[in-house]
C-alpha cells in the first residue's frame, strides 16, 4: 500500500533564509580602501641635472630615527618642529607674500582665468622638502605627510572659497577646469629628498 507522503512545511523557509541573511550581513565588510594619494617622482636620469632651487624657497622637514622633527628655513636657526604647529607653519610659508619679502619664498606672476575673467595672481615658489632616516617610524612619516597635504589643501580651499564660494573638493566635482586653475595657483609643492645612505657602504 502506497502511503501518501506528507507535504513538507515551508513555514521554516523564512527562518533558514534569515539565518543565511544574518551570516552574510555579519561577514560583509564594505570597507573602501582609503588613504593619502601621492605621486612618486620618475626615476632619476643621470644626464639631467636637477634644477637648482634657491635656498630661500625651501622649507626642510627632517625626521630622525627617534621620530623628532627638525625644521630648517633660510635665515633662521634650525629649530625642532612640532606636529601640532606644522600645518600652520607650512601654510604660512607657502602662502604667497607680495610684494617680494626676503623672509618668504619668491613669488611668480600668474594669470588665472576665473569665470571668464583674467585675474593676476602671485604664486609662491615655495617647496616643502621632506627627508627621513631609515629608522624613522612609518607612523610619524604619515602624520607629517598628512599635515603637509593638509596645509596645501587648506590653501586651495581658501582660494576656492574666495573665487567660487565652495571648497576645493566640491569644486573638483562640479567644475574640473576651474579646479585646474586653483591647482595651478597652489601646487602640491611637497618633495621628498632622494634617500641618502647613512654610513652604509655601497
Amino acid at each position, binding site marked *: 500500500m502506497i502511503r501518501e507522503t506528507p507535504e513538507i512545511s515551508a513555514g521554516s523557509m523564512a527562518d533558514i533564509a534569515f539565518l543565511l541573511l544574518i551570516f552574510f550581513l555579519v561577514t560583509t565588510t564594505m570597507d573602501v580602501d582609503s588613504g593619502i594619494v601621492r605621486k*612618486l617622482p620618475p626615476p632619476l636620469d643621470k644626464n639631467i641635472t636637477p634644477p637648482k632651487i634657491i635656498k630661500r624657497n625651501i622649507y626642510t622637514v627632517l625626521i630622525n630615527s627617534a621620530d623628532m622633527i627638525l625644521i630648517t628655513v633660510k635665515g633662521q636657526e634650525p629649530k625642532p618642529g612640532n606636529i601640532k604647529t606644522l600645518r600652520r607653519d607650512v601654510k604660512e610659508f607657502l602662502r604667497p607674500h607680495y610684494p617680494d619679502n626676503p623672509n618668504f619664498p619668491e613669488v611668480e606672476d600668474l594669470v588665472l582665468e576665473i569665470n571668464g575673467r583674467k585675474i593676476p595672481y602671485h604664486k609662491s615658489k615655495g617647496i616643502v622638502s621632506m627627508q627621513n632616516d631609515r629608522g624613522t617610524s*612609518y607612523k610619524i612619516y604619515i602624520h607629517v605627510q598628512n599635515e603637509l597635504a593638509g596645509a596645501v589643501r587648506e590653501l586651495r580651499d581658501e582660494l576656492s572659497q574666495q573665487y567660487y564660494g565652495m571648497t576645493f573638493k566640491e569644486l573638483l566635482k562640479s567644475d574640473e577646469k576651474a579646479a585646474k586653475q586653483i591647482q595651478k595657483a597652489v601646487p602640491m609643492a611637497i618633495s621628498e629628498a632622494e634617500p641618502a645612505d647613512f654610513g652604509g657602504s655601497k
Partner: protein
Amino acid sequence: MSKFKKDGKKKLPAISTASLPDIIFMLLFFFMVATVMREVELKVKVTAPDASEVQKLEDKSLVSPIYIGKPTKALQAKWGDEDRIQLNDAFAEVNEIRPFVEEKIAKIAEYKRKKHMISMKVDENAKMGIVTDVKQELRDANALKINYSTRKGFDAKK
C-alpha cells in the same frame, strides 16, 4: 446613518506572510553578491596609521596592494620578527616587486593602465628603511601612483 458602518464582527484579515521568504531571499542575494571575501591571507600584521587628509580609492580592480609589517605571531618562529614585505599571498624580497608590478599591470585593460595604483598597506610601527626601498623599486618599475593606506581620525592638535 453611515454607509461605511463597521461590521463589528468582522475580524481584520491576517497579513499574508507567504511572501516573507521571498523578501528575505532578495536581501540575502544582495548581501551574497556584495560580500567581498578577502582574497589574500594576510601573513603580516598591518595596523594602518591614522590620517585625516584621505581620499577614497574607487576602482578596486586597479589597485594592487603591497603589505609591509611584522609576520603574524604564528609565523614569527619561522620568519622572525623583522618587518617583511608581502606580495599576493607570500613573503617577498624587494627585488620581487618589479615583476609583481608588471604582472599586475598586464592584467589591466590597456586603456586603464594609467590609472593603476599601488596601495601601500604598511604597519604604523614599521621603519621607513624598508618602505623607502620599496618606493625606490616602484619608481624603477614606473609605478608612480601610490596610496598610503590609512585609517581616519588623526588630529594633530590632540
